[in-house]
Each structure stands twice: as structure tokens, then as C-alpha cells.
């Protein structure tokens, strides 16, 4: 039970940190993922559609923005769960930066290898005009997520 509660607390805190980072980037004119597109992708999953040519051209799904935000936070919580499953609750009781950053960096594989191709951007954004920049941005965002995992665990540690 404690594992689930801590996964939610740490994951939500880390995802919030990532959202603050994305908001900061937007202030400098660097766009981030539109969560309505994530929600649209999830909305199409029950219809058996996993990969899209372009998610922007796919049929809209009712409540896609809310669904996208919920998915975004659910993914963050599941990655925190991965961290706690790997390093145990001992880590949550006395968090260290290394494992959190490592999980943050490694989980960049999820957007690069799963989400981006599924949304139609190709593996590591290779179908976009600036794949290297976009991949680097994903890596930076996930590094911030890793930092967020550490900070959230520190704040919520017993």
C-alpha cells in the first residue's frame, strides 16, 4: 500500500516539476506536447488504433484534453512506481539523486521509441523537421522529471 501511495506522491510531484519546466520553455517560445493530442491517441486505443500517420489529422475524441492530462500524470506515477519497484521503499525513505535522475533519463525511451512513433512523428521525432532538437528537448524534459522524482521524494519522505 505504501508503495502505491508513494508512487502517486512522487510521480505527481515529478510530473508537476516537468510541467513547470514545459511552461518555462513555452515562455521562451519553445513548444511542448499538446496534451489534447495525447488524449486523442489514448481515445483511439480502444478502437484498436495504436499508430497514426499524424495524430493532428486523426478524428478528435470527446474530452481529449482532460484525458491527455490524466494520462500524462498516470505515466508520471507509473515511472515513479518503476523507480520504487527497482530501488525499494528504502530509497523513498532516504532519497538520493542518482537513481531518480537515472530513471528520468532512461524513461526518455518511452516518448522517443513509443509515443512519438505512435503519434506519427517517427522514432526519436525523425519525421519532424528538427529531430535532433526535439530529441534533445525530450531528454532535457526527462532529466527534469528525474530531478522532480528526487525533489518530490525528499519533500514527502517520512
Amino acid at each position, binding site marked *: 500500500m505504501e508503495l502505491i501511495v508513494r508512487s502517486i506522491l512522487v510521480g505527481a510531484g515529478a510530473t508537476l516539476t516537468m510541467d513547470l519546466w514545459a511552461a518555462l520553455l513555452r515562455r521562451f517560445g519553445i513548444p511542448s506536447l499538446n496534451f489534447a493530442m495525447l488524449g486523442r491517441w489514448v481515445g483511439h486505443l480502444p478502437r484498436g488504433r495504436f499508430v497514426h500517420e499524424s495524430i493532428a489529422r486523426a478524428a478528435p475524441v470527446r474530452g481529449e484534453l482532460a484525458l491527455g492530462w490524466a494520462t500524462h500524470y498516470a505515466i508520471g506515477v507509473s515511472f515513479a512506481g518503476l523507480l520504487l519497484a*527497482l530501488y525499494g521503499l528504502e530509497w523513498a525513505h532516504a532519497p538520493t539523486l542518482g537513481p531518480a535522475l537515472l530513471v528520468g533519463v532512461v524513461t526518455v525511451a518511452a516518448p522517443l521509441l513509443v509515443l512519438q512513433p505512435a503519434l506519427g512523428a517517427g*522514432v526519436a521525432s525523425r519525421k519532424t523537421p528538427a529531430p535532433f532538437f526535439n530529441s534533445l528537448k525530450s531528454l532535457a524534459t526527462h532529466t527534469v522529471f528525474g530531478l522532480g522524482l528526487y525533489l518530490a521524494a525528499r519533500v514527502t519522505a517520512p
Partner: protein
Amino acid sequence: MTTSARRWRGPLALVTLSLVPVVAGGARLGGLATGAEVTPETARFAASPLPIALHIASATLYSLLGAFQFSAGLRSRWPVWHRRAGRVLAASGVLAALSGMWMAAAYEIPAPLQGSLLFGVRMCVGAAMAASIVIAVVAILRRDVARHEAWMIRAYALGQGAGTQVLVLGPGALLLGDVLGPTRDLLMTLAWAINVVFAEYVIRRAPAARREAALAPAASQPG
């Protein structure tokens, strides 16, 4: 840099990346052949040497010989060599992938050296590598060169995991201390992810590079 030197740059970089795993594999095989002292870390190899011997031999052949398959110069000057070496490489690549999966599943690997995450990733990588080679072979039998090239690059990138793992585990040890248990699992996974992403960049650049190569001789001819 001359055109000839540029042609060899890619294969030489891949051979260099292979060196540490190849040397380490050779040392492991040598130890098994000469009956070197069995330690808790090597007990599984001594008890069942066939999978590790097959894996080292096939992976060594695949990584070293495979590096030269990516040289456009070699392919165009010696197409027969490329085809014959390709047959050997396809077989050795599938053998390396399957023996890797066999070892991950059958050997009693101590938990600090392989947790559930690494076991799962090794299974996925092995299956993906074998599948990539099969897709590439089917593609070339249908004369679909671009598809063959793309899937061979993916298969080679997965097969080169050990080379990148050396590059990742070294700095990882410096930054994080002991790289055992989940930290090792994550770093090993990261190395394969880096290779997959790099492979996609290479595949994306390949058509442009081919166009440039095709234009280069014509452009350099005196008017």
C-alpha cells in the same frame, strides 16, 4: 579528409566500439578453454559453456564483420563480398540474439548483475534483433534495398549493445559509484535505447547521404 578516409571512418568507429566486448569475450573464452579458476561470477559459464561460447563467437563475428557492411565503398566495389558476408552475418546475428536470450533465461545470473528489468529488456532486444535480421533478409530477397538497409542498421544497433554499455557503465560508475543491481539494469537499458535512437538518425540520413555519394563523382569531373 580524403574521400577514401571518409569511407572507412564509419566501419573503423564501429570496430573500435566493438573492441572492449570482443577482447573481454576472447578472455572469457580463453579462460573457459584453459580451465581457469571458477569464481561465483563465472560458475554459470563453467557449468554450461556452450551458450556463452556460441554467443561470444557469433557476436564477435557479427560486430566486426558487420561493421564493414556499412561502407558504401565496399558495397559498390565488392558487391559479391557484401552478399556473401551478409549471409554469414545474418546467421551469426540471429545466433547471437538467440544465444543471448538463452543465457538471460537459463543461466542463474546473480541479482546484482541481472534484475527483472534487465531480463525483460534482454528478451525484448534479442527478439527484436532476430526479427530485424529476418525482415532485412526478406526485404533484400524482394530487392527492396532501402528497407533491407534500414532493418540491418536496426539489427546491428541492437547487436552493438555491449559496445555502448562499456561507454555508459564507465561514466555511470564514476558518477553513481557501484553500478550493480537496478542501477546496472537501467544503464544497460539506456545503452540499448541510445543505439536504437542513433540507428534511426542514421536511417533518416541514409537517403540524403546516398544522393550526395551519387552526385559526388559527377560533380568532381572536370567540365
